[in-house]
């Protein structure tokens, strides 16, 4: 399960989503500017407040770190 915590104005979040789409990876996008509980959850799991945060089967990646995302999703 891939969850992306994002804000609507964050271009890096959109790039990340486009990248996952291009690799046919399904994800759930959560807009943390609209949902305070989800924002708190994002801060709790990542220990920080910047977006995007990506949760890949419980592995948390901060920012669009392509190398790490590729590793966790076995993408080449």
């Amino acid at each position, binding site marked *: 399960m891939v969850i992306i915590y994002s804000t609507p104005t*964050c271009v890096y979040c959109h790039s990340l989503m486009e990248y996952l789409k291009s690799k046919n990876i399904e994800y759930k996008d959560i807009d943390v500017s609209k949902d305070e509980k989800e924002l708190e959850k994002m801060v709790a799991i990542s220990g920080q407040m910047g977006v995007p945060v990506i949760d890949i089967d419980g592995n948390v990646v901060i920012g669009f770190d392509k190398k790490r995302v590729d590793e966790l999703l076995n993408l080449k």
Partner: protein
Amino acid sequence: MTYDLIIIGAGPAGVSAAVYATRQKLSILMLSKDIGGQVAKKAVDIENYPGFEKISGPDLVDLYKKQLKANDLSVTLGEVVGIEKNDNIFSVKTVDDKEYKAISVIVTSGAESKLIHVPGEEEFAGKGVSYCSLCDGPVFKNKDVAVVGGGNNGFETAVFLSNYVKSVKVLEYGEKANADAENQELVAKNPNIEVITNAQVTKIEGKVFVSAIYYEDRANKKEKKIDVSGVFVEIGYSPSTNFLGNLVDLNEKNEVIFNSETLETKTPGLFSAGDCNVSRYKQIVMASGQGALAALSAYNYIRKVS
């Protein structure tokens, strides 16, 4: 495979270079860690780009993507960490240990946010300290925040943030904020923004997350504290040129020195365009123009050597 041309970066200069180079039928690889560069982080609308009365940064980035797609160009995501030139072929290495080869290279790596270098800045990066208000601003809904820097970027960031946060304090080192008249006016009439001049930021404090920023009032040398949850750093940019090694000459600001007629660096076949270059003004339209010039120069170079 060896490409005709590798373009490093995909901001205004990189996109413009790619569009021009593709019209010359060159085989092109665009390598960049993101698309849009600083345009993607722009907090307010762009109103000085020909053909657009007004356009937001993200919307302009979308148009870049559409134009690249229409020209069968795609951006390979990757951060470049080094370039070498051997036997007239450039090797470009990325952080994920990949290597790409080309006859010519255009560097449009742009610039990164400058740091304030005070205690707490590094410790709280991402924990209240942010360098991308457009990304992180909405996370600070109803909070008090500070913006460091009273230039155009600082004022534009303050205006953007005021849509979400409770209050914004802009801390400017100088006696006067340097933002242009239009931005000064926008800030002056915004009741949620206060500009504090003569303010030298001394530290950022917190437990897990930022809780306060301290500054010295340069007029009377007294230290003052403001309780904030967020600190947005907007004191300008420094060029991303470290990976270029000794293939280029840099000035004292680490900007690339180039031939003004061709944008070629001291290494034949290596061109440079946009905000990584020596220039007094950094503007989207100027970066775009340099991208085009670099592409045409690279085409001439490639034609000559191959």
